[in-house]
């Protein structure tokens, strides 16, 4: 197998796993599956990479990349190593593929688990800055529909004597930035923004889907006035770079090609209705087919 960047990237991206497989995430996966996965990484890659690359320093390099960036990136960096035997690279990619598939299969189980052994691994990830997902093509999310049309997001009316119904994000409280809230949409804006700020921004591909899930969990129609108000606020925050300064390139959900997006309430609504961000060509193709 070739070890140039393009070949490796294509091979690893095929797994379509948006989550970075850090050791902590794999430990959580070990707990829910009962499989010994980290030793497998150790045996297949870590213990062999020094021999494969001809220098013990590469073992350390791989370990560091794995801990800092996750397994996909650590393997992707093989393109910068001295020439590696094809069977070794193939085995590493094969292992990644297997782990990525296994992780996707168990992702929901992991993020909703009450098992403190799983929770602490996710909390560790959060603390060490599990800041984004891979900028790789992702599976299409569930398409949303707006049977009643899309309302204009008006600022909601304050509820007299409103009392908080949601917990304040602990980090927001720690730095004394929890604001006065006047209604549930206010609280949700604060909750989502604090989550994106302190727990990591999941990237444009996932962020607004997560926000939509949260709104629906609290009985708010994403395309109603309150929902659009919350989406509008989050769009403003993204454009003000409150969740970090990042390139607005997103892989198209249809063709996988990266394209530049303009983050606006309209483009976010389109992505929610389409189940992901779609490039102009694919949109035009879909319209033609219709």
């Amino acid at each position, binding site marked *: 197998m070739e070890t140039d960047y393009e070949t490796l990237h294509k091979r690893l991206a095929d797994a379509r796993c948006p989550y970075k497989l850090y050791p902590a995430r794999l*430990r959580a996966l070990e707990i829910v599956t009962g499989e010994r996965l980290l030793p497998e990484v150790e045996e297949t890659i870590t213990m062999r990479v020094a021999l494969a690359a001809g220098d013990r320093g590469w073992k350390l390099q791989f370990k560091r990349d794995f801990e800092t960036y996750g397994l996909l990136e650590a393997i992707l960096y093989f393109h910068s190593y001295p020439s590696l035997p094809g069977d070794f690279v193939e085995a590493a990619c094969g292992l990644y593929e297997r782990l990525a598939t296994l992780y996707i299969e168990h992702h929901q189980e992991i993020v909703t688990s*009450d098992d*403190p052994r799983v*929770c602490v691994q996710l*909390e*560790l990830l959060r603390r060490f800055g599990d800041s984004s997902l891979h900028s790789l093509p992702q599976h299409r999310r569930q398409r949303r529909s707006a049977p009643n049309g899309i309302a204009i997001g008006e600022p909601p009316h304050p509820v007299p004597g409103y009392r908080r119904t949601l*917990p304040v*994000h602990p980090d927001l409280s720690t730095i004394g930035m929890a604001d006065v809230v006047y209604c549930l949409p206010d609280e949700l804006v604060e909750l989502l923004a604090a*989550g994106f700020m*302190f727990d990591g921004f999941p990237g444009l591909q996932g962020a607004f889907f997560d926000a939509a899930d949260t709104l629906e969990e609290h009985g708010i129609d994403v395309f109603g006035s309150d929902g659009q108000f919350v989406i509008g606020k989050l769009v403003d925050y993204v454009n003000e770079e409150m969740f970090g300064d990042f390139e607005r390139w997103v892989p198209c959900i249809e063709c996988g090609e990266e394209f530049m997006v303009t983050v606006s309430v309209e483009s976010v609504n389109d992505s929610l209705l389409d189940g992901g961000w779609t490039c102009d060509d694919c949109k035009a193709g879909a319209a033609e087919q219709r």
Partner: protein
Amino acid sequence: MTPRATPPSAAAATPAVAPGGPDELERAFGEPVSRVSELNWGELARRLGAYVARPDRTPVEDYGAIRRALQERWSLPVVETPHEVGAMSPLGEADPDYGRCGVRLLDFLRETRVYLVIRQVGDPGGGRMLWALLHELGHFVNHFEMLLSLGTLYQRVCLDPSLEIEVGRFAREAASPLHARRELEADLFALDWLLPVWVDDDEALRRNAVLTDRLTPDGYRLYRLRCALDAPFPLPAEPEAVAALNRAGAGERARARGAYPHSGTRWARACWLLFRRREVRGDDAESAALRRAYYRVAGYPPRHIPELTRRTSGSAAVDPELVWLKRVAPEGLAAEVDAARWAPVLVPSSTSTCGKYHIPVRPVPAQSGRDSELGWVHMSWPGVPKQRPLAEWLDRAASQAAGLLAFPRNPAELTLDREGQARE
């Protein structure tokens, strides 16, 4: 108990030593800090320790003023409670009659908050509460790391329930001597605060011209201790009263040759230390060995959680002699969390094994309402946890064959919540 010379009425002459005022408290606690946390605890403890060792200070004996200074300068809550104060672990880190230096376990991997609990007695200005406050402050200065490690210990028990047995084994062997040593160290801090160490030095007493022809150094020491523990009164001038004081001083010195009366009265403990503190200061070999043994079980540094990177040992058999978490049946949990409890309570997954893990939950802060009626959240949850009723947590734990470890608010935390003091 040695008979005491009756203090003259309070209306008599002023006491021989004027207590310190606000300036002294400023010297003791320094510039205000927004909170006491793991980050600044070491510095604050060192500063306070250095202040207490200074020979040129005048002890502050006003309970209310010290309490206010702790709250205003260190934002360290001091909660008074009429309840008998309980420990949080099998290590007995509380004194039922005085109080405890407590930590609020909210979310395991987050910052630990410290607070002092003082058992309320009739007159808050009396020497008993002053002693209790200084004693608990002594725990804060000397044992903060052990308090931190308690939080870690609970987290580790949730990740690996069989650790409860290991801790129980350690507690059976060492809890009592460890508790005694910690009590002695906290008492020593309280005594050092009230009676500067130069009082131990006969020469210094003569140099400072506090001794009269008839008053012995031990008589004077006892006089100072009584002023500090009970109420200040003028140094007696009558020969009979001075002779009684001298006799009492000599008697207490003789009594102090015995072992430290760690379950004795406040007076007995303070007296013993007054005459023995030179010998017991610093870490002795036994104390160091006890601490080492404790940290071998609990892990060191106090935030170390080996279970984060290693596999847990699996479910061990329950040994009824060694378990120490209070166990209740699911139907009894609501009543248990609403009672005045100082330690968490476990609804076990099984009576014969420790189980694979325990789900740690706590109620959300609320100014009113009983714990059983509030929403409860997971204490290891990443980010913002979801609130669920206690009954739902019971169902979830049962469906996973996991234990449910509930951390109800203790009476002090209830007070803090009612006062609206931020918990998160």
